[in-house]
């Protein structure tokens, strides 16, 4: 059987499985905050369909389709993964599970973790049992992520962690946190940081939600007071946590940029959303039309660029610092797209929970895209120095 035949056989099988297993209510293409299933011990399913969908998908490894089977995945290769997303999109299926464990910790563990760590931490992520959050930023650090002040004092078999993190997404709903902790205060800034895994239920861990301009609190401040972290809860080597962080930053940038790419579900809706706002003759408002066309063109081209970098990386041609480019272009575009959607929505978009749902909240949320995971300014400086080789 040729590669193509294998892939098509997989498609047929998957299509059948989806037909049988994806509940009808989960086929509404839901992308909003409400529609997401995050998992974790605090999780309450919004419907039995949501629960069924998660359990069935997890059983097949489809919550993390590209992870190895032994860690809870389906072991799909790149071609199969594409087919997987195509078939999911075909029936408008919701993602059965989303989480920082899937997006962030998983890739880090797969790359830096020991076999034992993978076996221990990955399957509960894949099954949506344990929810993770990320502890990188600290108050006042801003773009200077490596200026980590939270300390882990070496106590032999454990570190004693003290300090404070900020912008920890959904820390109040998470079970565990992966965090950058300074374990060597004498070393240069980037050389004394370790990447630790911490149980949020441990004594001394506290969280406080931060209310954002969109009215919701997706982020928290997280405080550590004399928290004991066993030595085996480190990913990678001691004081080499910055390597893990950098790897994940690159990964995160690609992920955030994907949000604006237009080939993802949200992007595919742009034309449809605009058509709704338009009259019978189409979108005749010249200003809006011109902006919409430019946005659509850019979204499609950025989507193709994501695709191209994946292909390049598969072909062994590293994308290198291009993730900074993708992050910059993707997030700036996403902001523009949401400005456009607010504009198209007119006064209907100006109400919380108005006729257009959470359009205003989504719009405000995008403003953080070009700040979190490295600001647009930092991305441009990276390109300037590392790609273009400009001095300074």
């Amino acid at each position, binding site marked *: 059987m040729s590669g193509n035949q294998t892939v098509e056989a997989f498609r047929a099988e998957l299509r059948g499985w989806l037909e049988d297993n994806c509940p009808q209510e989960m086929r509404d293409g839901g992308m909003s905050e409400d529609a997401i299933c995050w998992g974790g011990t605090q999780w309450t399913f919004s419907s039995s369909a949501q629960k069924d969908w998660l359990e069935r998908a997890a059983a097949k490894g489809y919550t993390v389709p590209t992870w190895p089977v032994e860690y809870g995945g389906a072991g799909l290769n790149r071609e199969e993964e594409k087919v997987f997303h195509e078939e999911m999109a075909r029936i408008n299926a919701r993602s059965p599970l989303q989480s920082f464990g899937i997006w962030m910790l998983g890739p880090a563990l797969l790359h830096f973790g020991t076999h034992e760590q993978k076996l221990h931490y990955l399957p509960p992520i894949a099954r949506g049992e344990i929810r993770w959050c990320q502890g990188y930023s600290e108050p006042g650090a801003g773009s200077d992520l490596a200026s980590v002040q939270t300390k882990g004092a070496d106590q032999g078999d454990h570190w004693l962690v003290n300090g404070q993190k900020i912008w920890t997404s959904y820390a109040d709903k998470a079970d565990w946190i992966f965090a950058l902790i300074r374990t060597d205060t004498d070393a240069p800034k980037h050389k004394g940081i370790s990447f630790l895994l911490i149980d949020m239920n441990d004594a001394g861990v506290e969280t406080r939600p931060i209310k954002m301009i969109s009215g919701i609190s997706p982020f928290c401040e997280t405080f550590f007071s004399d928290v004991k972290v066993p030595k085996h809860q480190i990913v990678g080597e001691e004081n080499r946590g910055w390597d893990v962080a950098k790897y994940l930053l690159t990964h995160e940038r690609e992920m955030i940029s994907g949000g604006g790419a237009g080939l993802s579900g949200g992007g595919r809706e742009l034309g449809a959303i605009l058509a709704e706002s338009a009259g019978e003759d189409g979108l005749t408002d010249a*200003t809006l039309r011109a902006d919409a066309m430019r946005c659509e063109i850019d979204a499609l081209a950025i989507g193709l660029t994501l695709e191209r970098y994946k292909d390049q990386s598969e072909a062994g041609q590293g994308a290198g610092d291009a993730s900074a480019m993708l992050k910059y272009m993707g997030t700036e575009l996403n902001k523009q797209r949401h*400005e456009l959607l607010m*504009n198209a929505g007119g006064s209907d978009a*100006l109400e919380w929970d108005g006729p257009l749902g959470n359009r205003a909240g989504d719009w405000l949320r995008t403003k953080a895209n070009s700040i979190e995971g490295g600001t647009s300014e930092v991305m441009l400086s990276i390109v300037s120095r590392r790609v273009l080789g400009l001095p300074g």
Partner: protein
Amino acid sequence: MAKLVMTEDETMLADSARGFLDSEAPVKALRDLRDAGKTHDAALWNKMADMGWAGVLVPESAGGSDMGSAAANVLAHEMGKTLVVSPFLSTAVIAATALRQVSDARTEAALAKIATGDVTYALAVDEGTKFDPNAVQMTAKSDGNGFRLSGKKQFVVDGGLADRLLVLARTDNGLSLFDIPADRAGVTRDASNMIDDRDAARITFEDVEATGDDLLGTVDQAMDVLRPALQAGQAALAAEMSGLTAGAFGMTVGYLKERKQFGMEIGRFQALQHRAAHLWCEIEVTASAILHAGRMLDHDPENAALAVSLAKARATATAQLAVQEGVQMHGGIGMTDAFDMGFYMKRARVGAEWLGDYSYHAEQVAALRGF
């Protein structure tokens, strides 16, 4: 034409307004109101009326100070700086201008009540998601000597708090403007939960009775009364937006000077310097358009359409840029509710839509310039 320079009187008015508002209505006042679940502070509005602001466009014969549009814009600009919540635009600018287009005992009395702060107004025009008076479908059917109003309005700013409504509706041969109490039978107001925390409503009119006396101006000729009112409102809104732009920009420049990253003030980074400088240039140019609109409304109102659309279009674009740069340059903190920048961003967004968005006014400019 009067000069494009602030007069001494205007500068004094601005200074005294600023002094009052800094103590009585800083951004915190909006925050407190929001946290209390309210959209209106009647006590504040009474104080403003006492200072003569409610009567800024009311003729002296009706107890107003009749200072003109440029002065109203000065007040609106200062209010914008701290995102003051008040029915100033709806009542003191739009309704007062509409009412003074008609000279009779009834409008004289209404204007007097506006000047004292004893009555508030809201303008009900929009029916779709975009401002377009000519697209109004709401009907006012002749019924004996009066009319029966049926239809729906949305984005009626101050529509929840207002005592009276100015309602645009379609009569037999055109559009007519009605001035009716907000609690008249058949009027249902649903508060809109606005992102800028100000008062607004969706309003349903079910067979609402209106007499000939409720008609403001001539039947089928609403625009004679409404056009000047809209223009005064659009110019004052542009001024308010330029005020909020100034407020957001001031915060941002202050932050650039104070915030350190990578060992130095971020205001030393040339990329940010140039963006801040560009923004300042845009602000300066917009200021000219707003000053000009005020002068035209006061001295050559028949020909003010271009000036007003220019001011609203520029103010809209500049405000968006100012709040977007404001949030981005502040970084994460700018995204938190605890910080004020988000209030500026949300107000700028609502101001962008109200009384015609950028595109609406750009098309007015294009039409007036022949393309």
